[in-house]
């Protein structure tokens, strides 16, 4: 009777197709973060404004207290700008270690020795940050709109506000990608996720403090573009057709955000390599 070798078997299964290989990285990143209870608590906290607005919608539309709060484009814009604080915190928690931890553990050579490209790796990591920043912005933003449409018994609300879906998606995407790309770039700059988190806070919060201090000293509102948050708010005003919050050209804000995102892409692309070459 033959004795079978149970120690090592050759494998002859089917390979998955390459175009979705980045999804393996995104899926694993999401699964790892979803195991952290503190992060789940943070995600739940970030949904509280959404729940509050659901109640407001119910009171204003279903209970008929129209004067309680006007349900128009501004209602949705305010919700998204209100979520900015949570997106910053979630970005730090979910994104600061995405590349930094891999650099620290020398994991890049493991990733890139497999059948994936540098682009797959970057898209996979970006996917993790994008997923978690989508949860408090785009997803509840669209749900809120659907809820508002459902609460209204006639089609008048939809006829008047259907266009709001586009700015909800547009502003959400600006929030999502600006946060995700900046935190990923900072994460790729150092082996310490703490460094990335602190630097991200500096970029987001300290830029606002700097703008406030300089604005007060020089008695001008034209420096509002210095703060990333203001740039995002200004873009939201343009998209939702609201009165501009700051005395700055939206073009300046838009260009600054675009520059930040492109700069982040450049940093990530140049930092993520399988071989570290010391010239």
């Amino acid at each position, binding site marked *: 009777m033959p004795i079978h070798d149970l120690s090592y078997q*050759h494998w002859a*299964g089917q390979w998955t197709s390459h175009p979705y290989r980045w999804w393996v990285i995104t899926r694993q990143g999401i699964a790892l973060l979803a195991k952290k209870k503190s992060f789940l608590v943070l995600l739940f906290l970030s949904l509280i404004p959404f729940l509050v607005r659901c109640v407001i919608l119910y009171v204003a539309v279903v209970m008929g207290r129209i004067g309680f709060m006007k349900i128009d484009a501004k209602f949705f814009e305010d919700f998204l700008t209100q979520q900015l604080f949570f997106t910053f915190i979630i970005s730090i928690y979910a994104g600061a270690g995405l590349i930094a931890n891999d650099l620290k553990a020398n994991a890049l050579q493991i990733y890139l020795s497999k059948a994936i490209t540098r682009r797959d790796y970057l898209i996979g990591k970006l996917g993790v940050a994008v997923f978690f920043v989508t949860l408090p912005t785009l997803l509840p933003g669209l749900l809120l709109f659907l809820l508002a449409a459902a609460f209204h018994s006639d089609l008048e609300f939809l006829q008047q506000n259907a266009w709001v879906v586009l700015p909800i998606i547009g502003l959400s995407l600006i929030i999502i990608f600006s946060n995700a790309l900046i935190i990923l770039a900072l994460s790729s700059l150092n082996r310490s996720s703490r460094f990335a988190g602190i630097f991200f806070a500096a970029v987001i919060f300290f830029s606002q403090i700097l703008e406030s201090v300089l604005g007060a000293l020089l008695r001008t509102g034209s420096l509002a573009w210095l703060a990333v948050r203001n740039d995002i708010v200004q873009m939201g005003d343009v998209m939702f057709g609201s009165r501009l919050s700051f005395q700055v050209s939206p073009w300046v804000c838009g260009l600054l955000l675009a520059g930040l995102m492109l700069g982040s892409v450049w940093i990530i692309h140049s930092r993520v390599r*399988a071989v570290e070459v010391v010239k």
Partner: protein
Amino acid sequence: MIIDLENITVEFGKQRVLDGVNVQFDGGSMGLLGPNGAGKTTLLKTLLGFIKPLSGGGSVLGMNVLSQQLAIRQKVGYMPENDCHIPGMNAVTFVAYAGQLTGMKPTDAMRRAHEILYYVGLGEARYRNVETYSTGMKQRIKLAQALVHDPQLIFLDEPTNGLDPKGRIEMLELVKDISTSKGINVILSSHLLPDVEWVCKDALVIHKGRRLAAGKIDDLKRGAGSVFECRVKGDVSAFRSELEALGCQCLDGDDGIIRIRMKGELSSHVLLQAARNRKVQIRHLLPMRHSLEEVFLEVIGEQKN
């Protein structure tokens, strides 16, 4: 041909790290030998497509190293030299993840991860976080992630680094088993000659980015000509001068022993004939086998000269 590289040159800035290296590997197990900084890791990384060579090209498993890197990496396993893992995972998740990155389906990858972890001796520790592993266990997990997708060829970069003697022997036995019983071709990069001698049949010696010697280890040990240890009674200087006239090298050893390197294909018959001609008695004659270390030092020495 498993690996066929022609004239590979790699530069980092102004520094030439590989200088016109040729590699031919028919399969089995090959040791990549050289001192630290010789260019061994760079050669492996070039084979994996991490580094684009300045010139040269070739194929790995019949696929072009310059244009089919993804296809190559699907068929090749790589165990890096330094400590590396994917943070926040236990061993089985890590190895399964490595399988999925190569293109295995999640269920296949998970089943295979369990099998491989048992094979490398981490079966009992497979649910422990990799970050808590000892150095020996980390070496094994690196081997497991390189094997999970059942590669046809595996690159092992200093697999015994940091291991105690027992761990080193276990790792070498594992590598030997992979290459001899499992039909996986192995390229073992090491600066430790006994490791290469233990596992491999072929060797490629690299020094300062240049290929110095290549071939079957037994052939390399034999050297350019046969070497004999010989002790004679009689006119030793006449015996030596006759051999030196034929192009052989004679070196003095201990206890009156002469170490004779024969020229080219000359055999021991020439030696016996010289003794007869000079009427000396041969009291001791022993064919010598080089150790790989001697071969290595010899080729490195030749390069220095």
